[in-house]
Structure formats: structure tokens, C-alpha cells
């Protein structure tokens, strides 16, 4: 008879487990530790993909290749940032990138879908808001972005001295993320 009672209690127990799981998800979402929408990066822990990108026409920065990143990374951790002039969140993180650049952190830019009709305004954008980048590569076809596993802009990668990708941020680097995540990482991989 107790077995029968247990059987009847099974649905309630299952609900308890499910509700606990959902509660963990929701509280994780509020804390930022659980993000059902985030796509994990397959690149973290691996080397920077090999690429070579031309410079942005009409702008005074040289183009970008994986060799440039490796060379700069030997001195200390570097950031690689995918951006586009039409992207509003890029504007949100822009002051933080400017500040990092002013502090001497090498920030490299890759302009996503440049020059196509998708992003005619990169030069204007940099002129108006300022240019935090050491070098800027233009990824016309989006091929390099795919090699990085980028699924949207802005996306930022942190690369250590060995040229290994250590961290990926999908979305804008807000002031809080700069303080809570980027700065500790920069210290750790210095």
C-alpha cells in the first residue's frame, strides 16, 4: 500500500524537482549566471584563427592579421573587437573601449561586413565617436567572423600572451562588465 501511495506522490515530486530547476534558472538569470539565450564560444582555450584583413579605406589605420595580434599579445593581453557602425550596442560599449585604449591596452577592431551596403558608415562612425583601435581589419564577407564564431556585433575576445583566446564577450562591454570581468582578466593574463 505504501508503494501505491508513493506512486501517487510521484507527480507532486516531479513538479517539485521541475519547480526547483526553474527557480534556479530564474535566479541565475537575475544574477547573470544563467543565460538561456547566450551562445557559448567554441574558440575559448584555442588559438586565434589565422586571417589577414585589409585596412579600412579612407581611414588612417593599418589592416589586421592574426600575426599582428600574436605579435602584440607577446607584450600582454589584447582585445579583439568586432563592431559595425549601425550597431547601437557598439555605441554603448564605445566609451569603455576608448578608456582601455587610452590606458594602453591594445584593442584591435574588425569591422563586420564593411564596405558592403551593410556598413557604409564605418569611417564616419569612427570620425564622430573616436577610434579606440590600434589596427582595423575589414571583414567584407563575414568569413573571419565565422572563423571566430561571432554571431553578432559587438563581440569582444581577450587573447593571452600565448595567442590563446581566453574570454569572449557577446554583447556590449558595459562599465560594470569592464570593472567586473575585463579588468580582472587583464590583470590575470598580464
Amino acid at each position, binding site marked *: 500500500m505504501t508503494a501505491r501511495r508513493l506512486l501517487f506522490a510521484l507527480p507532486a515530486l516531479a513538479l517539485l524537482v521541475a519547480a526547483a530547476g526553474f527557480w534556479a534558472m530564474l535566479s541565475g538569470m537575475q544574477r547573470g549566471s544563467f543565460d538561456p539565450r547566450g551562445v557559448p564560444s567554441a574558440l575559448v582555450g584555442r588559438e586565434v584563427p589565422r586571417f589577414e584583413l585589409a585596412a579600412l579605406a579612407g581611414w588612417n589605420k593599418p589592416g589586421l592579421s592574426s600575426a599582428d595580434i600574436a605579435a602584440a599579445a607577446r607584450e600582454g593581453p589584447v582585445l579583439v573587437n568586432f563592431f559595425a557602425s549601425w550597431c547601437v550596442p557598439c555605441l554603448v560599449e564605445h566609451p569603455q573601449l576608448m578608456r582601455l585604449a587610452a590606458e594602453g591596452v591594445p584593442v584591435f577592431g574588425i569591422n563586420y561586413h564593411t564596405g558592403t*551596403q551593410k556598413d557604409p558608415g564605418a569611417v564616419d562612425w569612427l570620425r564622430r565617436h573616436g577610434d579606440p583601435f590600434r589596427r582595423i581589419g575589414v571583414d567584407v564577407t563575414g568569413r573571419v567572423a565565422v572563423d571566430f564564431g561571432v554571431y553578432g556585433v559587438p563581440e569582444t575576445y581577450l587573447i593571452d600572451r600565448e595567442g590563446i583566446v581566453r574570454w569572449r564577450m557577446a554583447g556590449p562591454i558595459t562599465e*560594470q562588465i569592464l570593472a567586473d570581468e575585463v579588468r580582472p582578466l587583464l590583470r590575470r593574463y598580464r
Partner: protein
Amino acid sequence: MKAGDHAGPPRPLRRARLPLVGARGPRPTGGGPSWGARGALRPLALVFFLLCAPAHAVVDPREMLPDPAQEQRARDIGRGLRCLVCQNQSIDDSNADLARDLRRIVRERVAAGDSDAEVVRFVTDRYGDYVLLRPPVNAVTIGLWAAPALILLAGGAGAFAYLRRRRAATPPEAAPLSPEERARLRHLTAE
């Protein structure tokens, strides 16, 4: 309305990112209407969620491979790959930039002579198993793939036990019915 408005640069809020602002960082305040930053974010979030649904969803024939067999393979591969920007759409169904780039890369690989598995591995190397609409069978997904059979077995066992007990409770039948009686009974009970 100028015709150029359609072809112009995509509107700014085309990215997945704004909800993250709300979830992770401090919610931006600002000069918006006074229902507050949270209220102001909500329509933006809605824009994102529905963003890709209206994708024009027309694969550009200029992307297609000249060889119909290869094109068919590329389409089949594309149907199994998730468009990461849009969530729950295959790259074949989506007109997002990323989906188009991926379609092009899939076709490049197919044309270069890669097998289907190699093309898929090329993509999962960059985006992880997350892009596969059909999850591979591995330690993580074994529960998922085993679930249907287990559920059916458990349910079947329960139903079997129930039915057996119902039959066990059957009182011994009296004299068998004659065919006429049976037909009449069937007619009565079928109502």
C-alpha cells in the same frame, strides 16, 4: 516615402544584445519617457525576439551551386544548422546576415569536395554543437535520445499492469452469447 528607405542600411537595433544589457549590467536610464528604463527596454526586447521571424526567407539563387546535386546537399546540410541570430530557425530559412554567410561557407565547403560530415564539423568547430538542430548522441544528450523509449516503456508497463488487473477482475462469464445476441449487444453498446 522614398524608395530608398527599404534598401537603406539595416536599422540599428538588429542585434541580440539589448536584452543582455538588462540582464547583466545596470539598466540604462536616460531621457526616455518616465515609465522608466525598464519599460523603455521592453519594446526593444520585443523587437529582438521577433526580429528574425519576418526574414525575407528567400535564398538568393545567386548563392546556389551550379551542380544541382551539390546544391541539394548544401540545402540539406543548411536545414540541419541553426541560425544563431534568430534562434530556432535553420540557416536555410533565415535571411540574417550570419545565416547568409554560413550558407555561403557551406556551399564553399561542398564545392571544395568536403563530405557532409566534414562540412558540419567545420561549422561545429566554430560554433559548437549548439548549432546542430539535431543534437548528436553523446554523454549530454543520451537522456534526451533515450527518453522517448523509456517513457513509452514505463507507460506501457503501467498500462499493461492496469489492463491485467482489470481483466483479472473479470467475473467468469455465463453461457456464451449466441451470434444474434452478440450482434444485438454490439449494436446496443456501440451507441
